[in-house]
């Protein structure tokens, strides 16, 4: 049996190969001033916001839920962080930046808790429950920034997205997040209990699983991770743009989760798959820039590639292919008969 990450990884490798064949410098990595540069390194850096959001989305989807509010939470988080930094007397003070980051994450966490409250305690359908915040969140962000796009110049804050420690600092942030979430889910029983709740909520409840708490924590984690994503986004553009921050990211995150092999039906999830899914999307974005696909055509190009990747992974297609080889085999071994192969 093939490993379940086989097709996602194959898709990613193929994408990188195509790029390298088209322009060989795609794969080249150069060292300058003790820093690594190159298209691949850029992909690792730019992946950070989508990666963080998709991690949370994976856990939420595993519980049979969905979190549409992640983009809006990013906007709120960025607005909170920049408002604090902007309001301080010394934007370059490390303490101020740390405070801003912590407060922004806590606010995002609370927004996630709100989603979890609606879903797990009030029993509202996840898509509706998180739609509330998806629509209202950007309004909240605009309230915080008083309707303006708050901009700042703060070296420590900018370091989050553009800083380097041999590799981009943003890369380390998402790796740390992947490791933290991975350890929490798999080193404790949270992962398997989350899957149980996602596969069969009623059986889990009767088995004594605290499904309410597990679902709640998934949304809280998703909120917090979206908050960190919002901070990195704001740091990258040095501004809190309530309308543009994390726009459509919820949809890309869902796509990354599915590309990675986690089913939207909930249950079994794979964080490694999600990482690969995000890298596929990010590589695809770079590919379009790299190959010079005109901006007007890029969504079509993007869609075409995604369709191919999704179809390749379709279990039904795999069954179909197996069916063909299997019936060909059984036809070969059956006694020759005139209409044996004729489909009726």
């Amino acid at each position: 049996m093939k490993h379940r990450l086989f097709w996602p990884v194959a898709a990613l490798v193929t994408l990188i190969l195509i790029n390298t064949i088209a322009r060989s410098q795609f794969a080249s990595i150069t060292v300058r001033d003790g820093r690594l540069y190159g298209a691949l390194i850029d992909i690792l850096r730019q992946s950070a916001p989508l990666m963080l959001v998709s991690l949370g989305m994976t856990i939420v989807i595993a519980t049979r839920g969905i979190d549409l509010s992640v983009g809006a939470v990013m906007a709120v988080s960025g607005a909170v962080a920049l408002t604090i930094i902007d309001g301080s007397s010394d934007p370059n003070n490390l303490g101020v930046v740390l405070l801003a980051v912590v407060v922004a994450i806590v606010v995002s966490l609370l927004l996630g808790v709100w989603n979890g409250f609606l879903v797990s305690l009030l029993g509202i359908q996840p898509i509706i429950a998180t739609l509330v915040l998806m629509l209202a969140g950007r309004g909240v962000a605009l309230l915080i920034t008083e309707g303006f796009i708050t901009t700042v110049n703060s070296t420590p804050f900018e370091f989050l997205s553009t800083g380097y420690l041999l590799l981009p600092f943003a890369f380390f942030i998402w790796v740390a997040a992947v490791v933290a979430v991975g350890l929490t889910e798999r080193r404790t029983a949270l992962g398997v209990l989350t899957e149980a709740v996602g596969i069969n909520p009623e059986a889990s409840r009767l088995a004594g699983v605290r499904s309410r708490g597990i679902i709640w924590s998934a949304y809280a984690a998703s909120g917090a991770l979206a908050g960190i994503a919002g901070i990195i986004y704001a740091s990258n553009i040095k501004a809190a743009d309530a309308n543009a921050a994390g726009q459509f990211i919820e949809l890309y995150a869902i796509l990354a989760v599915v590309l990675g092999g986690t089913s939207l039906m909930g249950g079994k999830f794979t964080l490694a798959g999600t990482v690969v899914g995000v890298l596929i999307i990010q590589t695809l974005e770079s590919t379009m820039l790299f190959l010079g696909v005109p901006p007007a055509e890029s969504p079509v190009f993007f869609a075409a590639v995604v369709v191919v990747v999704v179809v390749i992974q379709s279990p039904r297609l795999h069954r179909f292919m197996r069916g063909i080889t299997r019936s060909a085999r059984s036809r070969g071994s059956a006694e020759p008969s005139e209409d044996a192969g004729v489909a009726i």
Partner: protein
Amino acid sequence: MTLPADAATAPIVEMRGITISFPGVLALDNVDFFLRPGEVHSLMGENGAGKSTLIKALTGVYAIDSGSIDVTGTSQVFRGTSDAEAAGISTVYQEINLCTNLSVGENVMLGHEPRKGGRIDWKAVHRLAAEHLEGLGISIDTRSLLSNHSIAIQQLVAISRAMVLDAKVLVLDEPTSSLDRGEVEQLFTVIRDLRAKGAAIIFVSHFLDQVYEIADRITVLRNGKLVGEYLVKDLPRDQLVTKMIGRQLDDLEAISSTAARAIDRTDTPILKATGVGRRGVLEPVDVDVFDGEIVGIAGLLGSGRTELVRLLYGADRADSGNIEVAGTPAKMTSPRHAIDRRIAFSSEDRREEGIVADLTVAENILLGIQARKGLRKIRREKQDSVVSEYMAALDVRPADPDMVAGNLSGGNQQKVLIARWLATAPELLILDEPTRGIDVGTKADLQKKVAELSEQGLSVIFISSELEEVLRLAQRIVVMRDRKSIGGLDSRRFDLDGLIEFIANQGEGSAA
């Protein structure tokens, strides 16, 4: 293999040398199966014997690895269920797959609606549907919503749908598992009628009585291999059972001593429920269970058996009554409260409320203790030892802890569930229909296990539709009817007829 003497009628279906393997399992090994027009043919075997695999090969769900399938003398290769349907093979599955939110007529004619000028002629749809249904002896309003009808009617609607497809072969997979006695009769009348008209019918059921009542011929499978094909009149039941499980079945006799066991009822009961009920669901009921005692709950489907134990377990909330566990009052508003007081509950609905299908057997067994323990993961060695201990104790087959639980047969899923609960070291185990839809051999295994556990001091509440089972295992029986308790009895003083009589008549005039 040699065919019985009356094999003169040319078979309508000839399956020869059918072999199907799944990763690691040879599900069918060179099996022959012949079906003749105008017969009801029963496919018998334990869970995992290969009955459903054979049916799925015939209905085009699975492709066969080797062998041949001939229908009316023509060799067939089924690439999907539609190929099989086109060849005249129609299936009514265990879980009826109809659209309950459509009308009866729409369901009967789905996909075959007569058209007039490019649009569906609804008048004709309902007229034809009514004709098909009347052909089966049922007259209901075809414009009524299917969900408003009983499971039995839905079953018949599914059969009439097969008639629309002009099926020559009708496959009925456990059609009676959720029907009451009268409904079974209705279904059998239809089956006999279809047989008289020359249809070939495959009838799969775990109810031996029903097989002997309706079937003409029996094919027995065991472990994916063909045991043989027999005429029903030539095969006494004990021989059938022996052929199915490959050993003599004296085991059940040994169990019956359990019911006669004396229980010390002077101590504090492990569970004492007084007036537990819920408005519109269950009238207040008293139940008590002592150490090492098996209390049976008998009654027909819908009598309130399940409702009662769900209230005791906290799966649903009671709005009246008190529950004491080992002498101290207990608040049962959630399963967790019950679990904390060492009460375990295995639901009658294995698939929806028991097994977590996509998790492995090991994960399913560990789910109970892990949920109790919280987020701290059970140590690997401890996991392995618990899983192997309980898989061996209950003889879960195949003995592969990493197998996805949803792929196990029903009987083995039930064993996994009991393993899950036993691992939590309960003091009271509530088993709701643990033997439903399970083959004879596994049934005997499970009953033996329950008897054994109770002798070791575990208290059990045991619900079953099969009254023999309840009589065999339980020392005391609570009889339910119409969502209330109509009495508790000592099982030593009742035989089957007495119990049936009690269920049917007790309480009519003398309600306690």
